[in-house]
């Protein structure tokens, strides 16, 4: 009996340990990315004067192989924000509408099909989206003179919009669904039509959840790598040509150079990753604050 108790205690410890692995992973990831990236600001050698944090973040020039090298990641930050904004402008209205559709309008079979559609869109690997993007660009380049669908911000935004759509749809649906039935019934009792109930009662009540969805979508868009790297054009300069500019985002910068980078250059890529990491963490904190404020649970 005593042995049995001890055995149970050991197993319980194992469960606890497993449960802490996620937290440990987050801590380890944070620590090691910092460890590799932060030295950029402190490594001083004869031919290399380390950039200040300000120079790094707001520098407009990225010439890692020059002597002395220039590490300014403003172009990447602008590019990341630009494609993310473009993606959200396209994805939020559609995602919202489809979320409402699944939660309130569609019934039975239509609802099931659309839910599967959303899941499959979420499941398609990003490299496949990228491949599709490349093929579409090829098609447009072949058939039109100077089409807007080229290796540029526009294409990257469209692909990212499709990729963030499922996140927004899902969370909109869950949020609207979790608004208490009383709200709907109250609205109908007051003579509200179905659409008035949706637009004036359900969506406002689900607002926090929807915002969380948009932020999560933003996180997915900003951190997305493989789809963007194939369609965004990969030009490390400040975008000047609007939607037609070829750009390189933060994620692209890391993947693009990591294969051959050495010394300071490699460190600078990790520093770039730190910036990306900060963006993601900020978005995470924002969702935490919003979910804690609202009574609606978003899974």
């Amino acid at each position, binding site marked *: 009996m005593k042995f049995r108790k001890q055995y149970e205690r050991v197993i319980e410890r194992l469960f606890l340990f497993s449960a802490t692995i996620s937290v440990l992973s987050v801590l380890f990831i944070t620590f*090691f990315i910092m460890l*590799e990236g932060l030295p950029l600001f402190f490594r001083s050698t004869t031919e290399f004067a380390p950039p200040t944090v300000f120079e790094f973040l707001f520098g407009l020039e990225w010439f890692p192989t020059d002597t002395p090298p220039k590490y300014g990641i403003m172009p990447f930050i602008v590019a990341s924000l630009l494609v993310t904004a473009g993606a959200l402008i396209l994805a939020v*209205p559609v995602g919202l509408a489809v979320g409402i559709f699944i939660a309130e309008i569609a019934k039975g079979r239509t609802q099931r099909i659309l839910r599967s559609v959303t899941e499959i869109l979420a499941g398609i690997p*990003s490299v496949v*989206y990228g491949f599709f993007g490349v093929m579409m660009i090829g098609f447009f380049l072949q058939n039109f003179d100077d089409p807007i669908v080229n290796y540029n911000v526009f294409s990257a935004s469209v692909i990212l919009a499709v990729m963030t759509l499922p996140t927004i749809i899902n969370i909109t649906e869950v949020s609207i669904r979790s608004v208490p039935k009383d709200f709907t019934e109250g609205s109908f009792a007051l003579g509200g039509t179905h659409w008035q109930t949706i637009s004036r009662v359900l969506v406002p009540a689900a607002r926090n959840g929807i915002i969380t969805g948009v932020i999560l979508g933003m996180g997915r868009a900003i951190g997305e790598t493989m789809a963007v790297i194939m369609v965004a054009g990969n030009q490390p300069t400040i975008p000047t040509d609007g939607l037609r500019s070829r750009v390189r985002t933060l994620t692209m910068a890391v993947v693009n150079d990591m294969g051959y980078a050495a010394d300071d250059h490699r460190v600078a890529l990790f520093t770039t990753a730190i910036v990306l990491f900060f963006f993601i963490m900020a978005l995470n904190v924002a969702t935490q604050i919003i979910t804690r404020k609202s009574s609606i649970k978003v899974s």
Partner: protein
Amino acid sequence: MATQTIPGMKDAPLSDHTRVVLRQQTIAKGIIWGAAGLTMGILILIVGYIIFNGLYTRQIRDYPVMPYTQESVVIDGSGTELSVVVPRSMRIRDVIYQDLRDIFNGRTPYLGYLTTQNINAVPVVYSGEGFATAAERYLLPEGRTFEFYGDDVTFAGTVEEIQAIVDEEPGTIVVAPPAIAERIDRTKIAGIRQVAVVVHPDILALQAGRRLEHLERNQVADLYSGDVVAWSAVGGPSIEIEAQDLANDIEGIYEPLPAIPVILDESAGAAAPSLDAIGDDLSLRDTAITVTTVEAFIETLTTTRGAIGIIRAREAMEAELPYLEIERVSHWANLRPALFFRAPSRAGAVGGLSYIIVNTVAMIIFVLLIATPIGVSAAIFLVEYAKQGRLIYILRLGTDTLAGIPSIIFGLFGMVFFSQILGFKTGLVSGTLTLTIMILPTIVRTSEEALKSVSGGLREGSLALGATKLQTIFRVVLPAASPGILTGVILAIGRAVGETAALLFTMGSNLALLRSLNSPIRVLSVHLYMLIRENISIPNAFAAATILVVIVFFVNYSTTKLIGRLNKAAGQ
């Protein structure tokens, strides 16, 4: 959901306000239906496009000869005939003269680009009855012998000798008289395409920034029959009668350049191809010029503007006549079962996906072996042991945060931590561990939901029967929650299979079979990325993408089925 009839709607006229509200509702719902349709359309477009191209490939290629195949060709005036024989396993239906020539003078030792098989050419010439010298006159430039090009070519004097080579070498290509060719077992005759379309040099000249690059076979027929009279109708040049004058803003003035067929009469012998090569039942236009010797043909063609003619590719090459590329559309089934069993080579341009599939399956097995126990244990702790409070909040926060970290960050972390600090190098172990922490949140969350959905009564019943807490968990709760847990595992498979960014620097991208745990290998998603980035083979990329999409469908189908079963069980 809501009833949309207004009480007394049919009797009383609607007020203006009601009408506006109803119209708004119709418009809004219309927009929402539109958005839903758009989402569905996007999915159908993407998936349909990928799967269609994955199963079926259509390739337009230009060839220097007409798509007219002959089982055997006459070499010269003596009437010697030549056939090409290949092993039955070789994926080739016909061979164009230029390729045949390159194979027999050693310039194309590799057959991958002709057959999509990873084999080298073994050219064999039948050497009996003076056939070898005849073959030289056909396959090699004037006056050259096979010996001139080294010992690439094997001579075989009897059917038995040829048979031995054919059975030994999958890349054997034999030229022999048809009578001999028929007697070799386990082979097939590959058709020969040797009819070139030659034109007056002006036809291929650049005019107004455009150049006639290729024609379709029926366009050639149209030019011959007179259905198309002028070259400009098929994208060719016109005669410029007044030059472009930029200063006075005068665009050039042009007159149509008529197509003039030049026909080499059959009396010229082996060099004159049959007019069947152009099309069946060809009616010649009356402007056609007929000549009787090869020399006259060449002379007419180089001096008559607008001339077009067909001649054997060998004579066209010897006389260096300008020839037109002929467009040929070929279709084939792309994702064949053989693709799964053949090894990739030439960076994935030819061959199959066997190594890649093995590597991917190994990766998934390893990831699941590590991630499932950890994830389920974590979920058990969160649901069965932890009490609401600080600890559980931190643990949940950790899982949520981990789920939000982009895969490229995981890749960098894996590269530093697993590959370098822990010393696993770039390979299966590093990649697997990186993926494990990446998919952990998926497994933890779905397992949590599954465990929560097990009714409390089940637990209490078990405890009341005297089982310990652990026995209850393992014998009662886990079995009841297993469909839900399995759902999480399948979702995790879907995510792991498609992951690329995290694997580029941890698993590597070497096109090698998994042999050791610490050497770089390539999985399916990375393979797809490499095929596109280096523009190696678009058909193969479609095949890889199709496999990935099919896996997504499988994941969706099985999780939906499992959840359906779970709901049913909960309902009972």
